[in-house]
């Protein structure tokens, strides 16, 4: 079959070239249209429910809402994990489905179950399924700045002018508005006046509601025509509202007579500050599976057109644009790819000594890349740091097949000028076709374990493996089709000697190999010593999940006293912002968000703040690197005591939250039932964690400390005065918060009409004594102080309740500095076992990066041996000897040895990318071994002495072995030395492969011949 393929390629060259050009163009088009993102979509199929229950405490919500919804959801098939976070007045329930579950199916299932349970929830519950976004969907953030517009006006513009326009963009799931004041028309009733005319609160609500409505009446036929008849009552202006008649019993009394009607704002549950001043911001949330780069581009264009229509002096200030990160990371990879291609072409030219041959081999790169992009598009794989990284990793291996084909073709055409060129090329290609196919299959098998990874590591590294597989398959097919055709067109048929440099190299190699044969035992002992040393070094290697991608921006998360007010919380944020801006000139701007967002995707409490720092370009920094910059920021934040704080980055924060519900490298979850016990255990564990070396930013989420002023209506009084808890709640809510009674519609702007306390004209209770004295307007119009009709007490309770698979838990989080995560967790486990006595029914689990690292290790430890077995089977079928197959496999430990040494001395940890490096190394090492041993086997029939045969064979294979190794090494060198964002993720991989190739090449060139000789001698004996 392979022969026919090669034959077809050489006889139908024109067709093949046209097809290739077509693939090249299609590939280029695919590249331009491929969805581009910084990261692959790492989110599982996840459905989030956000339910808001105004006025309910976390415990009440948990008991009445969360539990009911969780119980209903538990029956949905394919679910993996069910998490919930319940805070004051809100609960977020997140359901992760197993890999591959269709998101629309999952949402439908959840929607059906939710519809079943919603009627049984308290009446005040509102909300539902969150927009179809992922935790990484927050891709573009901006604030609206103006010295002249008030915060209310800014919020109005964001809410009613900008948001609808941005939501019309394909791929935008929603636009989350934060900060500023949401405008309302506020009715502040005077209870005394209402009492005087005998109007109750509920009466007033009914009057406003019924007045602000248009009614449909029907049609009236007038002559031959029909008129639509309608009743009009909606308020057209705030004056209409003021003039609404509320009573006619003692003269006409209007709303303005019994209440103050003014413009106000909804109670705020969060605020945004920028560089020390309050502002309003918008977060553009992308739909799941949207093309992030394209969506951002459209958002940019739309905002540019909107900005022209903004009031004078107002401007849009973008402080987070994912496209910048995408461009930087993809740019880093593209740069590495470009350099890799150049270096590989240079290596090919030097080793082949023939520019035409080098060009022929190099042609495999653009065509393979184009085919890979085409396949990526077909299989919905986005272009990102990981998938493009896979292509860079593959560069060195991509040329291997064509190197073998072209090298053989060159050798054939240079040695034999009598036969037709096409025939020689056909023979040359046919000779190497089988080894080329088996070599490529080995590489594909080697990378197959990556496809078995699950969880985050699977999402991250599957694109790497798939891209490599696509590239290798493309390379294989092209090597046996396009390359032979190009060889026939580009190579010259003339007698030619090997390049002098190659001849010199071979002579030196021969001399060294002979010397090695004499001192084979000493060399073997030395190799074993280094191998043992590397094993020791391996024990000292730090283990972590993966290096964190430098996203450029920094987020500091603050946690303050649980009962802090929004105003105090904001003031503290401003203090810290001002200090940071004054002392760290590297910060371009700071945007801090405290409290909850509007949608509830991230329901932070008033004591929680995310301080987002946009940094200047690194060239403008005074600090050497980001680590020292972070250290400086840390020392400033630490000089503000009484706060918990931690460092993270925008994507890192959301990924961590998605995986574990929190944002640190290591999380220790304590599962149990009693909130107080959970809080105490978390506090004890926090102290233990702080004592473990390497712990940094150790925090325990504050779950206790909630204080609730509970007002309980006296039952006998309630019956006597005709007031129930719900009436009382509505009344009190109007005093302390606001009660929406209707909506004022003005074009596209909808302004809530609320009953609320107006600033400056009525008092707001500011102490428990005030609450006691609050005048309550009874249904009969009588006024009584609150304490006469209700018991008022302060109760303590949790401020948040987190649950996982229906079990409550508290969590302690820590980042890890100057050591690896795995050893940190091992020490931590030991310390916790020693110092913490867990009560019955309580258990601890470790999560975060550690969990992903452990899962990845377990998966790889299970799958890599299976791959090795498959490779052994292929080797056995190639050589027909298990011993020779094992001989080839002997190359592996020596290759790994180099990787370990390189990793150790570079200071990198053993991470998943490093493990991928070892896997790649395994493939190259086996491939080199196959190249060498196969040649020894081919010369088996020669009658010469064994040693001469081996040395001759090794000399013949020197060029392909060195080329394979060097193309791989130089192909990865740009990644190893790259410094741009994104490079840190692939760097360990490059270091392992480069280090491993040093030792592996040495083993292939010097130890394999010795092993082979020993094996052959043994066989002969």
């Amino acid at each position: 079959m392979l022969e026919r393929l090669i034959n077809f390629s050489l006889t139908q060259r024109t067709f093949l070239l046209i097809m290739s050009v077509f693939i090249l163009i299609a590939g280029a088009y695919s590249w331009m249209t491929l969805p581009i993102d910084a990261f692959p979509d790492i989110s599982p199929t996840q459905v989030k429910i956000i339910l808001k229950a105004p006025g309910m405490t976390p415990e009440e919500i948990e008991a009445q809402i969360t539990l009911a919804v969780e119980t209903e959801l538990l029956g949905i098939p394919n679910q993996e994990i069910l998490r919930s976070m319940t805070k004051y007045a809100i609960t977020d329930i997140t359901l992760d489905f197993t890999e591959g579950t269709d998101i629309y199916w999952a949402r439908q299932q959840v929607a059906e179950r939710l519809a079943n349970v919603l009627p049984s929830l308290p009446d005040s519950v509102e909300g539902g399924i969150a927009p179809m976004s992922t935790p990484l969907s927050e891709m573009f953030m901006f604030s609206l700045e103006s010295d002249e517009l008030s915060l209310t006006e800014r919020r109005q513009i964001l809410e009613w002018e900008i948001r609808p326009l941005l939501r019309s963009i394909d791929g935008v799931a929603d636009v989350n508005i934060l900060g500023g004041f949401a405008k309302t028309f506020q009715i502040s009733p005077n209870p005394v006046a209402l009492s005087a005319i005998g109007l109750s609160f509920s009466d007033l609500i009914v009057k406003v509601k019924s007045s602000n409505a248009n009614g449909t009446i029907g049609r009236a036929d007038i002559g031959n025509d029909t008129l639509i008849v309608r009743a009009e009552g909606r308020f057209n202006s705030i004056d209409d509202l003021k003039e609404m008649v509320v009573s006619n019993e003692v003269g006409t009394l209007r709303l303005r007579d019994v209440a103050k009607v003014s413009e106000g704002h909804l109670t705020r549950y969060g605020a945004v500050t920028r560089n020390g001043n309050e502002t309003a911001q918008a977060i553009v949330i992308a739909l799941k599976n949207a093309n992030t780069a394209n969506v951002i581009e459209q958002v940019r264009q739309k905002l540019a057109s909107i900005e022209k229509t903004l009031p004078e002096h107002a401007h849009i200030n973008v402080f987070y644009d994912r496209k910048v990160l995408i461009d930087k990371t993809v740019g880093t990879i593209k740069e590495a790819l470009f350099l890799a291609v150049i270096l590989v072409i240079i290596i090919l030219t030097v080793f082949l000594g023939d520019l035409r041959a080098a060009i022929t081999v190099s042609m495999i790169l653009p065509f393979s890349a184009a085919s890979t992009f085409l396949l990526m598009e077909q299989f919905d794989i986005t272009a990102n740091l990981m998938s493009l990284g896979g292509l860079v990793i593959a560069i060195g291996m991509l040329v291997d097949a064509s190197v073998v084909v072209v090298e053989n073709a060159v050798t054939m055409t240079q040695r034999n000028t009598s036969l037709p060129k096409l025939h020689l090329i056909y023979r040359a290609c046919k000779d190497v076709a089988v080894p080329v196919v088996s070599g490529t299959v080995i590489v594909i098998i080697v990378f197959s374990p990556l496809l078995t990874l699950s969880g985050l590591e699977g999402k991250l590294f599957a694109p790497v493996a798939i891209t490599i597989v696509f590239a290798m398959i493309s390379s294989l097919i092209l090597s046996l089709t396009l390359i032979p055709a190009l060889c026939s067109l580009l190579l010259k048929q003339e007698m030619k000697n090997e390049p002098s440099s190659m001849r010199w190299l071979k002579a030196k190699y021969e001399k060294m190999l002979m010397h090695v044969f004499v001192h084979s035992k000493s060399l073997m002992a030395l190799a074993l010593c280094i191998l043992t040393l590397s094993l020791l070094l391996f024990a000292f290697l730090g283990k972590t999940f993966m290096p964190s991608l430098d996203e450029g921006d920094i987020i500091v998360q603050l946690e303050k006293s649980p009962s802090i007010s929004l105003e105090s919380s904001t003031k503290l944020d401003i203090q810290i912002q001002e200090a940071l801006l004054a002392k760290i000139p590297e910060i371009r701007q700071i945007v801090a968000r405290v409290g909850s967002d509007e949608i509830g995707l991230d329901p932070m409490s008033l004591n929680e703040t995310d301080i987002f720092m946009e940094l200047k370009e690194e060239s403008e920094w005074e600090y050497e690197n980001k680590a020292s910059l972070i250290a400086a920021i840390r020392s400033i934040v630490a000089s503000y005591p009484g706060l918990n704080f931690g460092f993270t980055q925008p994507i890192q924060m959301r990924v961590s939250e998605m995986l574990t519900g929190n944002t640190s490298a290591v999380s220790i979850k304590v599962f149990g039932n009693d909130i107080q016990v959970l809080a105490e255990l978390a506090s004890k564990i926090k102290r233990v964690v702080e004592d473990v070396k390497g712990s940094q930013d150790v925090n325990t989420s504050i779950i206790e400390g909630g204080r609730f002023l509970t007002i309980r209506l006296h039952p006998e009084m309630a019956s006597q005065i005709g007031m129930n808890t719900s009436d009382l709640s509505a009344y009190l809510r109007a005093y302390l918060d606001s009660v929406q009674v209707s909506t004022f519609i003005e074009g596209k702007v909808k302004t809530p009409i609320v009953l609320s306390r107006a600033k400056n004209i009525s008092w707001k209770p500011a102490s428990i004594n005030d609450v006691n004295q609050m005048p309550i307007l009874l249904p009969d119009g009588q006024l009584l102080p609150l304490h006469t009709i209700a018991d008022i007490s302060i109760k303590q309770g949790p401020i948040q309740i987190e649950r996982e698979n229906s079990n409550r838990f508290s969590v302690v989080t820590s980042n890890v500095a100057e050591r690896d995560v795995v050893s940190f967790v091992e020490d931590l486990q030991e310390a916790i076992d020693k110092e913490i006595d867990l009560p019955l029914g309580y258990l601890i689990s470790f999560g975060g990066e550690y969990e992903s690292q452990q899962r990845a290790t377990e998966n790889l430890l299970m799958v890599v041996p299976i791959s090795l077995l498959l490779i052994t089977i292929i080797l056995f079928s190639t050589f027909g000897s298990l011993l020779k197959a094992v001989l080839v496999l002997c190359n592996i430990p020596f290759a790994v040895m180099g990787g370990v040494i390189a990793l150790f001395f570079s200071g990198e940890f053993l991470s998943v990318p490093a493990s991928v490096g070892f896997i790649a190394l395994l493939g190259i090492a086996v491939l080199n071994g196959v190249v060498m041993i196969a040649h020894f086997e081919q010369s088996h029939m020669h009658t010469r002495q064994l040693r001469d045969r081996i040395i001759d064979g090794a000399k013949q294979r020197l060029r392909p072995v060195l080329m394979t190794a060097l193309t791989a090494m130089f192909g990865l060198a740009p990644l190893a030395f790259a410094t741009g964002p994104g490079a840190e993720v692939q760097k360990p991989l490059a270091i392992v492969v480069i280090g491993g190739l040093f030792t592996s090449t040495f083993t292939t060139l010097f130890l394999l011949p010795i092993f082979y000789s020993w094996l052959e001698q043994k066989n002969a004996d």
Partner: protein
Amino acid sequence: MNKYIFIYLLIHMFIPKTGLAQELVVKISDLKNLEQTTHKVKGISFYEGRPLSGRVSEMPGQSYSVVSPIEIHQAQYLINSGIQVEKGTPFAVIKGPEVHHYIEQFQQAKLIYEQSKSLYENQQALFKKGLLNQDIWLQTVQLYSKSKLDYEEYQHFFDNIEPSSINADSLIILAPIDGYLLYQHQERTMAGDLLTKIIPHDALRISASFALNNRVTPTALRFETCEIAIATNFNTDSRFFSTLWTEPLPDHCVAHYGQQLNVQPIYNQPLFSIPKNAVFDMDGQYYVLVKSEEFYEAVEVELLSSSSTHYTVSTTRNLGDFEILTSSVSAVQGIMMGIGD
């Protein structure tokens, strides 16, 4: 957290106890870069409580009622209700046949009275001389007394009638005293019905309901710029309230009879006024952080009332002229809770 406990113990060992329920201290140096703005506490002699519902009305038992002695077909008021009048000011004209009859009755009663008086005086002289039978004298005395009473009954009403109006079918009624005229228009006024009420100036006061279970009674009520001392506190039959009555409304206080008012009770008590942002909560108690040379000491306070910016607090310790922390208070609260340790 341990260092604070240590400092706490030190203070308790070496500083005499002040009777505080709880003391917590934080070293100023431990606040590092936290902004520390302080406010000098000022003592106040009074404070304003939460607004009460007040009403301008007359103190019970002090108003004067003008009652119609007859059925009146038409009562035309010359002065609007609620207006202050002086004694003798004509305020209403009453008309109708019964008025005419009543005038006649008055004139008859007057005539009978005058004649019986004359008879009485004549017969008195005869009786003294023993010339008149005792039975006849007794009848004369009885007749005279009856006619006098009858006449005086009419006379009381006619004292407040414009004399020039007595000969017609109508009568002009005059105000019997100085005060606020208060009447309600009626379709028909029967004998014995109230024609008007006149509230003497010093009877018009502000009353407000005040919850019975309040520990302290206000000393004055304030509305707008008007502050009036409390005169008395009636414990009515209400289950929840007593009624506060102020002194009479001074001239500069513009308020109309029956007007509903939001009044603020004024309490006379030596207290402290502190900014709202100085107060924080620890375990259900409220504290302020009082500055000393090296420490901030948390002093428990009781929040009595609040304005938009300040609390009125009571405390067992004299906070007068002490500096209290008004910025970064929540961060200090966090320190005391062990956050960020």
